[in-house]
């Protein structure tokens, strides 16, 4: 198979990975696709395991199934004593029971390797180039950073993958998003991904798999690439991909579940064929100059409501069609007035974490801004590492001290405020500068108001107490 992967017509990276996983293809194009890695968390899996039991089925490939609780887990140290919320406790207990009964690879809540499923997978070397990776979670797109075809599925599909290790799929279309040139100082992977969604809209990627490419993407670390791919779903795409290269191989090499020795060499030989052929067909191409990307924030309740930090809050009349009413509703929910400067928006809370920006590099970048500075009066700040190992690494580097000296709370790993399924939530009307991925109404707590941005922008807002251009803070340091 590896010998024929590049034979025939020119193909995109997505075409190559898809083709390599087809178990069965029907005349109408409906395919049975083999799944190499199945990640499982406690919220979207209980009904799937229940379905298996009711039909007397087993997990087909427990060795390719990885389970970790993340959505419900409290991020305070007292979680060693268990989860206080009875429903959350039952859900995590259910995952515990299912993982043990079906013999899955499992990282329990108090294991140091526990964390957000999309951070644990790559960190442990489960996610490898050329693989198909699914999870009952839309941010599975994250794993595309490795040149893996990765996407979210519903609970019925979770049950289907558990029972058969396959998924019924039809080919999506191919979209190329090229970021040419180099990013300017203060501009990060988060600004790239938000800016793309700002341009294409939350439905712009519907029906597509996106491959991100170009110099600015190549120059990103794996952490940055994961941030970009993580939000492919916010642009509506089935998946986001980045071709693997030396940066990828260096990250993967030596991870607990990465291939070793001769298997590593064989894997590497295949991985190096994983790129889009020069004359491959693209159904849609978007090109953005990296120099044109600025530090951005969201102002509304859709991830497409993106503006450069120097802009002003728009008016409903600035939009067309159904977006007029949506903008009016967003402004009302967010408590903003058209025409006000984004930098005049005061924040009550700052959240640094999530599967979008909870990796070591994100914490380093935020700490760099916060070093020797302090949270503005009245602002509460929370840093939630994406995994127990990220937390340990940060502590080894002394980042925890930087955050706590700045007045932040230093928490244990989990999804935390990003979706408010655990005790970390915003109060009604509370406004948060967040490094997470969704600014939907009620996402971080009923009535809570979310502005999405990069870790350095969140750190800048923490210091000043209002949305702030991080470049102003950087200029002050220089």
């Amino acid at each position, binding site marked *: 198979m590896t010998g024929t992967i590049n034979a025939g017509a020119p193909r995109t990276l997505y075409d190559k990975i898809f083709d390599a996983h087809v178990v069965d293809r029907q005349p109408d194009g409906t395919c049975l696709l083999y799944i190499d890695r199945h990640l499982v968390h406690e919220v979207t899996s209980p009904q799937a395991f229940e379905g298996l039991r009711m039909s007397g089925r087993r997990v087909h490939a427990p060795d390719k199934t990885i389970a970790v609780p993340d959505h419900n887990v409290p991020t305070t140290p007292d979680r060693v004593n268990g989860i206080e919320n009875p429903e959350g406790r039952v859900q995590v207990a259910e995952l515990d029971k299912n993982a043990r009964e079906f013999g899955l690879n499992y990282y329990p809540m108090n294991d140091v390797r526990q964390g957000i499923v999309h951070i644990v997978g790559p960190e442990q070397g489960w996610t490898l180039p050329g693989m198909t990776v699914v999870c009952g979670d839309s941010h599975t797109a994250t794993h595309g950073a490795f040149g893996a075809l990765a996407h979210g599925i519903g609970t019925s599909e979770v049950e289907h993958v558990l029972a058969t290790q396959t998924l019924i799929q039809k080919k999506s279309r191919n979209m190329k998003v090229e970021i040419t040139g180099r990013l300017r100082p203060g501009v990060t992977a988060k600004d790239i991904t938000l800016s793309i969604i700002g341009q294409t809209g*939350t439905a712009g990627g519907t029906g597509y798999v996106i491959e991100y490419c170009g110099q600015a993407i190549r120059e990103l670390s794996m952490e940055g690439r994961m941030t970009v791919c993580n939000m492919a779903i916010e642009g509506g795409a089935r998946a986001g991909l980045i071709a693997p290269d030396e940066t990828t191989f260096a990250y993967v090499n030596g991870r607990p579940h990465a291939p070793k020795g001769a298997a590593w060499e064989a894997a590497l030989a295949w991985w190096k064929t994983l790129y889009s052929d020069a004359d491959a067909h693209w159904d849609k191409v978007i090109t953005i100059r990296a120099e044109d990307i600025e530090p951005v924030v969201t102002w509304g309740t859709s991830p497409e409501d993106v503006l450069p930090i120097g802009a002003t809050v728009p008016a409903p009349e600035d939009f067309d069609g159904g977006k007029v009413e949506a903008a009016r509703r967003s402004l009302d929910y967010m408590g903003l007035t058209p025409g006000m400067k984004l930098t005049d928006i005061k924040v009550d809370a700052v959240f640094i974490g999530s599967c979008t920006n909870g990796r070591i590099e994100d914490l380093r970048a935020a700490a760099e801004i916060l070093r020797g500075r302090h949270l503005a009066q009245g602002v509460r700040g929370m840093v939630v590492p994406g995994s127990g190992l990220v937390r340990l690494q940060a502590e080894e580097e002394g980042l925890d001290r930087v955050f706590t000296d700045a007045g932040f709370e230093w928490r244990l790993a989990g999804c935390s405020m990003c979706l408010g399924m655990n005790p970390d939530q915003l109060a009604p009307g509370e406004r948060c500068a967040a490094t997470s991925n969704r600014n939907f109404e009620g996402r971080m707590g009923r009535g809570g108001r979310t502005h999405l941005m990069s870790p350095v922008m969140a750190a800048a807002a923490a210091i000043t107490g209002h949305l702030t251009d991080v470049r102003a803070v950087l200029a002050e340091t220089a």
Partner: protein
Amino acid sequence: MDKFTTLTGIAAPMPLVNIDTDMIIPKQFLKTIHRSGLGKNLFDEMRYAPDGTENPDFVLNRPAYRDAQIIVAGDNFGCGSSREHAPWALLDFGIRCVISTSFADIFYNNCFKNGILPIVMPQDAVDALMKDAENGANARLTVDLESQTVTAPDGTAWPFEMDPHRKHCLLNGLDDIGLTLEKSAAIQSYEAQIAQSQPWV
């Protein structure tokens, strides 16, 4: 899974664009380990005030729409998370069909697994059906999956496109897992091949 063949029912208009899965079923209701019982919390934060009383202006609380079985929605319905709790909540409330110009990918897939028919139609058709839906309880739409039409109260039949495989499964209420397990030999043969060529997988 229940079959979907034809449905005649009240259609509720929800013209807002980008109705996301957090609106359809907020995160606090994802803590269940069951599929049923989510209907009472469908659109919870739009439907109820913080004290739990009904918001009388919300469409599904208005007398004409309390028994709605169809939703006519703005663009990009179901965007956001992969939670299947969204179609479970719709189904539990009694919604069997959603009509929009576009759906988010995962939500769209999830509907078919639960006997809900998501219909994509061009803007002019959605606009016309939205107007019909705004007429309240007298405005019943008839959805026929076999003929792929939605018939408005005035008799206009709007056609829609549908993937033949999905249509077949929905018309017959077929269980995907059962169908796939019939291909176990192909799965095993694929696995044997991978064990040779990519032993690290």
